[in-house]
């Protein structure tokens, strides 16, 4: 057997301070109340830093700073805003290894993903929207598109810096200023991004970062001087925000949960389909809103496909996120681990057959072995509820109509996958799927030029691409 020796990425490329304040009006300061929370490395449970909790007065200050900055920022020629964003993109490229290691430490994701997926996409997103800043009149939203004002942005913990990029880049390109709240379990990369803004000499107040938990976010999105709210996270919180914002005239975009169907027909390219299934559900520990968490397999292919899938899963390497050979890292938090465990127990108790490969897990930290459930039906809770972890529910179908009907039989509608070598079937199935992104013979592909967002309870509005500008333009 060819055992790989540990190949750890060096932690010394990133220098984490013991405590961090809020980034308001171009400088860091402690919160008004002096409240702090700890952010930990989920792979070791070690405390990485103490971070200030933004209270109401802090959020007020941040919004006021953004409001003050808005006038001159929005009045800048687009070409000048573009150059700030290009600078940010370049600095992110230059500091990408540092930021990747930081992201893996704070989030638990494998360094291979933060290095090869998150950070390149973050830089690319800023490059893409930098280019739009002086071309807004060509974007198809009228001859003189105007910014909205101050954008309140609340982002999740699964792709901390990438979700920041998805929010901040289009907002700034279109001339808005932002107050952004990162998730409380992953605040560090946003605070490092504040330093990127400083290096780029971005005017004070254009980007403000307030850290804290749900209360901070709730206060921010309810703030009367905010013109636009953008949220990525759970459908439950999204619903609350939609209620809060209703009647205020604020613009709102939501990118929420999902329960994507990954549909495999019997004429699929099998080996690549297996890769796509694995990537679809185990990428980023399954902490992906568009994860392919429901595998719909044509019955005639069921056994060979499941055999191949199990064989492939046995080669997945779970462990130290900083090891360059790790495929699956740590679950982001104790709370999320508890939720994954609970739903998995329910799956087993409801009669689905549970399987995981032999998989030694570290003693400390939050870990969950890659898991599949077979014998799942539409009636199982694990076929309906978002688990947000490395857990796949396998269902079967007989005909394309049945596959489409099952795929659509959910309140969610974020993404879907289709695997078949027949082009006309891909296009017909894609037409009928009620989902914002359909991947054919691939899965979990992202690009700044490509719009992303959901149907139904997966949210509204699109991020990315030309369409992503619309959410920030009057």
């Amino acid at each position, binding site marked *: 057997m*060819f055992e*790989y020796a*540990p190949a750890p990425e060096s932690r010394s490329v990133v220098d984490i301070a013991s405590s961090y304040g809020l980034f308001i009006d171009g400088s860091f300061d402690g919160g008004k109340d002096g409240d702090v929370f700890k952010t930990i490395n989920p792979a070791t449970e070690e405390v990485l830093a103490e971070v200030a909790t933004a209270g109401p007065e802090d959020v007020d200050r941040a919004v006021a700073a953004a409001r003050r900055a808005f006038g001159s920022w929005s009045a800048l020629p687009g070409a000048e805003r573009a150059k700030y964003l290009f600078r940010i993109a370049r600095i992110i490229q230059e500091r990408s290894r540092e930021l990747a290691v930081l992201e893996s430490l704070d989030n638990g994701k494998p360094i291979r993903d933060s290095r090869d997926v998150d950070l390149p996409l973050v830089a690319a997103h800023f490059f893409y929207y930098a280019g739009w800043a002086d071309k807004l009149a060509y974007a198809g939203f009228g001859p003189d598109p105007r910014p909205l004002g101050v954008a309140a942005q609340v982002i999740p913990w699964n792709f901390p810096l990438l979700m920041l990029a998805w929010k901040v880049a289009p907002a700034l390109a279109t001339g808005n200023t932002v107050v952004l709240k990162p998730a409380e379990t992953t605040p560090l990369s946003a605070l490092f991004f504040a330093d990127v803004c400083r290096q780029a000499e971005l005017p004070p107040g254009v980007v403000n970062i307030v850290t804290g938990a749900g209360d901070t976010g709730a206060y921010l999105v309810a703030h009367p001087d905010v013109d636009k709210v953008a949220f990525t996270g759970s459908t439950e919180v999204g619903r609350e925000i939609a209620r809060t914002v209703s009647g205020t005239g604020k613009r709102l975009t939501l990118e929420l949960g999902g329960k994507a169907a990954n549909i495999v027909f019997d004429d699929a*390219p099998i*080996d690549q389909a297996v*890769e*796509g299934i694995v990537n679809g559900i185990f990428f980023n520990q399954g902490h992906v809103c568009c994860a392919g968490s429901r595998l719909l397999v044509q019955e005639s292919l069921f056994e060979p496909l499941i055999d191949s899938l199990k064989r492939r899963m046995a*080669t997945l390497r779970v462990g130290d996120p900083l090891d360059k050979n790790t495929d699956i890292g740590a679950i982001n938090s104790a709370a999320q681990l508890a939720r994954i465990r609970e739903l998995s127990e329910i799956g087993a108790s409801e009669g689905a057959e549970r399987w995981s490969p032999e998989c030694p897990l570290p003693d400390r930290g939050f870990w969950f072995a890659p898991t599949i459930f077979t014998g799942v039906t539409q009636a199982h809770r694990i076929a309906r509820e978002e688990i947000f972890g490395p857990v796949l529910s396998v269902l079967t179908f007989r005909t394309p109509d049945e596959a489409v009907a099952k795929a659509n039989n959910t309140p969610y509608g974020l993404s879907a996958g289709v695997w078949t070598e027949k082009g006309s079937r891909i296009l017909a199935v894609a037409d009928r799927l009620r989902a914002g992104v359909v991947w054919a*013979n691939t899965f979990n592909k992202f690009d700044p030029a490509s719009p992303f967002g959901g149907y139904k309870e997966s949210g509204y509005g699109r991020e990315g691409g030309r369409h992503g500008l619309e959410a920030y333009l009057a």
Partner: protein
Amino acid sequence: MTVTVSAGLSDLRSFLHGLPGVDKVGVEARAAALATRSIKTSAKAHAIDLAIRMVDLTTLEGADTPGKVRALCAKARRPDPADSSCPPVAAICVYPAMVPVAAAALAGSGVHLASVATAFPSGQAPLEVKLADTRDAVAAGADEIDMVISRGAFLAGEYSRVFDEIVAVKEACGGAHLKVILETGELGTYDNVRRASWLAMLAGADFIKTSTGKVAVNATLPITLVMLEAVRDFRERHGRVIGVKPAGGIKTTKDAVKYLVLINETVGDDWLTPDRFRFGASSLLNDLLMQRTKLTTGHYAGPDYFTLD
């Protein structure tokens, strides 16, 4: 199975065209992802020695002479004269005319002697010539034969002709192991690589090999991945284990380690042995030796400290 599929052209065609397709983007992405594995320290030392033991040290030039071949054989037996812990390579690979020289030079060493045959590299010769070529090489002492398939026939859809040729050459090999060169760089698609792999295995190949080393595209990671998937699936269906040999263009230790990772994570242990996997290479060996020395001495090695050939 073998008998039924060889029975008629239409059966063979429908079988080969009924194999699952290979998505180009997907297979290349998978190979590229595996190529990012980081193999360090003890794992690297293990990999380097394994790779040395898997090398088919090759010279296939019009200018080959007995002197050149003898020198290569000496190197095959003892790749690093300064380090007796360095293992010998798997085999020497030469043209049929050079087999007698190599056989003498390798006698008693345990290093296998492979000969290309069947009108290498084009395969464009009558069957009788190909068979005579094979018999001569075996009679002169080759215990492994690297044959080329008729790509022209394959691309023209004459699958049974290709099949029958392989069967005939296998028979001419007698006890010698048969490696079937698909010349994947001329097949055009991954689907064809998968079909040609199955065709060769069904016809009796002991090994399937990517390339002659004489065309623009030789061994690549995704092509080898498709071939590894084929031998994996073939064993599942027929129980017989077929070896794989990427050849041409593998020049560095880094390259070789990527192939070992590919094996490890596609087909596993059973193929991590020179009996089941070979590298057709020449300059690779010296890079392996330099990296091996770097691991033991702790500093980078230079080419002047390793033997030519």
